[in-house]
């Protein structure tokens, strides 16, 4: 009987720890996200995201920024959204950094700045974010935001390709098959990435 009571006490303690340790802001954020995606209630979701954003919760700030950027549930104000993303990017918030890099690259909502885009992508690539690794490799090949350098681009493309990025795998196949960008033809490399692309390795 003592064993049973001990087990009950332990279960209650575990439950209290789980509930107490839960991120209340995250739960409120998830509720707002469900409101937005399930009920398509943009306005109500935007109000909830704004409340959480005021409390300094980064995912809600990013979401609110997106809604401001596209004018969903709130008035469209890309410049406000961009400044929100810039603040978040300064805090190393991955989604905001990646989105902001895309804005800089395309010049959407902000003046086109390929160097700023490259720097943001490079920052994310170093953290191990695969799509950013591909972007860094591609920009180094195209000479966007940095001087063209195929030798430096290949390692980034390989990192992205190893992370399963299909575009990077296709790019490497084409480079090694045709011997592009001053890289000599290498059939074994091309074959290797072809196998990776179809998921055999």
């Amino acid at each position, binding site marked *: 009987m003592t064993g049973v009571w001990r087990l009950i006490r332990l279960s209650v303690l575990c439950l209290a720890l789980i509930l107490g340790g839960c*991120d209340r802001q995250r739960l409120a954020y*998830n509720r707002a996200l*469900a409101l937005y995606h399930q009920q398509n209630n943009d306005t109500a979701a935007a109000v909830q995201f704004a409340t959480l954003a005021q409390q300094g919760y980064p995912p809600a700030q990013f979401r609110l920024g997106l809604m401001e950027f596209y004018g969903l549930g709130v008035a469209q104000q890309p410049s406000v959204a961009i400044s929100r993303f810039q603040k978040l990017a300064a805090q190393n918030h991955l989604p905001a950094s990646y989105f902001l890099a895309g804005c800089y690259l395309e010049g959407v909502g902000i003046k086109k700045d390929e160097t700023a885009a490259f720097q943001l992508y490079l920052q994310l690539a170093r953290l191990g974010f695969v799509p950013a690794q591909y972007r860094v490799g591609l920009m180094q090949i195209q000479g966007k935001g940095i001087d063209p350098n195929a030798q430096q681009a290949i390692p980034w493309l390989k990192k992205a390709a190893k992370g*399963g990025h299909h575009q990077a795998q296709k790019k490497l196949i084409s480079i090694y098959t045709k011997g592009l960008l001053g890289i000599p033809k290498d059939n074994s490399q091309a074959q290797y990435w072809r196998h990776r692309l179809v998921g055999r390795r």
Partner: protein
Amino acid sequence: MLRFALGVLLLAPLTFAFWWWLWMDISLPLLWRMADLSARWLQASHVVEIQYQGGKYFLLTSLEAAENPLQIGLISVPFQRFTASFPLLWALLLATPRSERFFNMVFGTMALFPIIVLMVLLYLQFQIGYLINQQSFGTEPILTGYYLALPYSQNAYYAMRVGRNMALLVLPMASPMLLWMLFNLNHFRTLQTEQTAHDKANTS
């Protein structure tokens, strides 16, 4: 033993039919609620909720798609395949002679619910990891779109793959058998004592 084996063979089609035609509809809403609540509390960093849409269950994640962050990741939740443990347990319990069948059936069925929720959570954790890491595994389809999250380490992803295999391949079979053994522990102890006595008699 032969009687038990024959009993399982005869009863299994009946219990599976009961599960397929009746029990699935009864148990799925309860399992859905339990799994939804558990996933929302325990995997709050990526789980928004488990939804029911058009006869199917989906996990709504908070993972934003890299190329369109307004879109978030959806994962299909195959609750049905996890509930196959129920008929297996019932066949085993009903075929066991000299046992408290009613008590075992009720408590066994109740005990399976949290175990199935655990299977669902393990499966969902793998699916979240798969969505983030995008590394093909087993029969899972190759994904093409990335989500805005840093990939899990290889060790963590490996653990998730083990969890997925446990949830899909091991636990649905092993959990009813373990429960059945637990309910018939005394019978197994008797068998063991008899075997030991038999071995001793043989050696002397």
